[in-house]
């Protein structure tokens, strides 16, 4: 039984540590903020120029000057600071953010990531994704294991890259995979999912960890 989006987000939240500064991408990654354990302090960075991002405002409290990188209205916290886009990406590029959780179209066994363009389709741009994957200490991809019958964990990405050799971990609906110098390793499998199913749905060379956790 594959994990739901919520379960995937909950699993990603286990990568958080007390005191971490974290950047969450748009989509499933945004849900991770709902699973920060009680008593753990995590500051969320929004790359348009804010550290210490709060939840959505109550209706009527929306402020046009207070949005996140997804252009959604948000709120501030007692810890919040604001800064320019140059300072924001100096923070990102300089390796000060501990963890980035973001979506992807493809991830290769060498850590290559593709998530910004499909040749032949209208290109919207990479936004801050290339900076985030190049600069953040640990990059976790949160995505469906397979999309529209297309495998997404590949030997080599076929789409134009967002970053080369940048992914540290992939969490899909089927399992959790680390990416390192020795390639891609399955370390956890979702309940009732088999090794055979994962192998069949993965193009990348995949090792199963000795201490693999079958949920």
């Amino acid at each position, binding site marked *: 039984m594959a994990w739901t989006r919520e379960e995937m987000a909950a699993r990603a939240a286990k990568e958080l540590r007390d005191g971490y500064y974290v950047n969450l991408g748009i989509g499933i990654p945004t849900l991770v903020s709902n699973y920060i354990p009680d008593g753990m302090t995590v500051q969320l960075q*929004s*790359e*348009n*120029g*804010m550290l210490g991002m709060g*939840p*959505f*405002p*109550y*209706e009527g*409290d*929306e*402020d*046009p*000057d*207070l*949005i*996140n990188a*997804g*252009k*959604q*209205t*948000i709120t*501030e916290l007692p810890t919040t600071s*604001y*800064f*320019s*886009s*140059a300072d*924001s*990406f*100096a923070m*990102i*590029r300089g390796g000060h953010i501990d963890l980035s959780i973001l979506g992807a179209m493809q991830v290769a066994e060498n850590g*290559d990531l593709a998530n910004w363009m499909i040749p032949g389709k*209208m*290109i*919207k*741009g*990479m*936004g*801050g*994704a*290339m*900076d985030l994957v*190049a*600069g953040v200490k640990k990059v976790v991809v949160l995505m469906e294991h397979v999309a529209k019958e297309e495998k997404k964990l590949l030997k080599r990405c076929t789409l*134009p*890259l*967002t*970053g*080369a*050799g940048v992914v540290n971990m992939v969490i899909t609906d089927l399992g959790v995979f680390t990416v390192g110098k020795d390639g891609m390793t399955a370390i956890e499998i979702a309940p009732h999912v088999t090794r055979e199913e994962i192998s069949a749905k993965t193009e990348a060379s995949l090792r199963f960890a000795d201490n693999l956790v079958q949920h």
Partner: protein
Amino acid sequence: MAKVYSDATSALAGLLKDDMVIMAGGFGLCGIPSLLIKAIRETGVKNLTIISNNAGVDGEGLGLLLETRQVKKMISSYVGENKTFAQQYLAGELEIEFNPQGTLAERIRAGGAGIPAFYTKTGVGTLIAQGKDEREFNGEKYVMETGLLADLAVVHAWKGDTEGNLVYRKSARNFNPMMATAGKVTVAQVEHLVECGTIDPDHIITPGIFVQRIIHAAGLEKKIEQRTVRQRA
């Protein structure tokens, strides 16, 4: 040297010409120099190269200059929310140069800071690095990116004084401070125009040296692109 002008049109007088490069602050519709963009549209100046993180939306922000086909080229990081943009781009009528958002921000800062080029890890091994110089530092590959300057920068601030000192409000700061430093001429619209000495000098983000002209954008209507809320308990 009076920097204060009565409105956007007079503040832009003499500064616009076809084929020029304009930087426009803002992220999405947040912190955009909306009155100055409208005044640029009214002059009909054309073949503009616009450096701005986004391209506005239909009928708002830079979307207004796209509608009238005044833009030849955009240098941006993300242009997703604009149908006019998509149509013109797909028809080959609009050029676009995509920059990673942090590279774009840093290129503008570098331009204003007299730095013609710098190295970054961002984009190494991607299309973005093609045709650009690469170099290793401490065993890691970096790509060289160049500084950006503009003939004119238009920015939005929360408060400004008659010397041109600016402060910004919350996430409406975004690209405005760097762009203010990188325009040969910088024109600012401010929601609150105050006397010199009113803003604590430790709080000023853009010193007046970077701002040549300033207008009071009284009663400005600021748009929200994505209204997201939570329910009261």
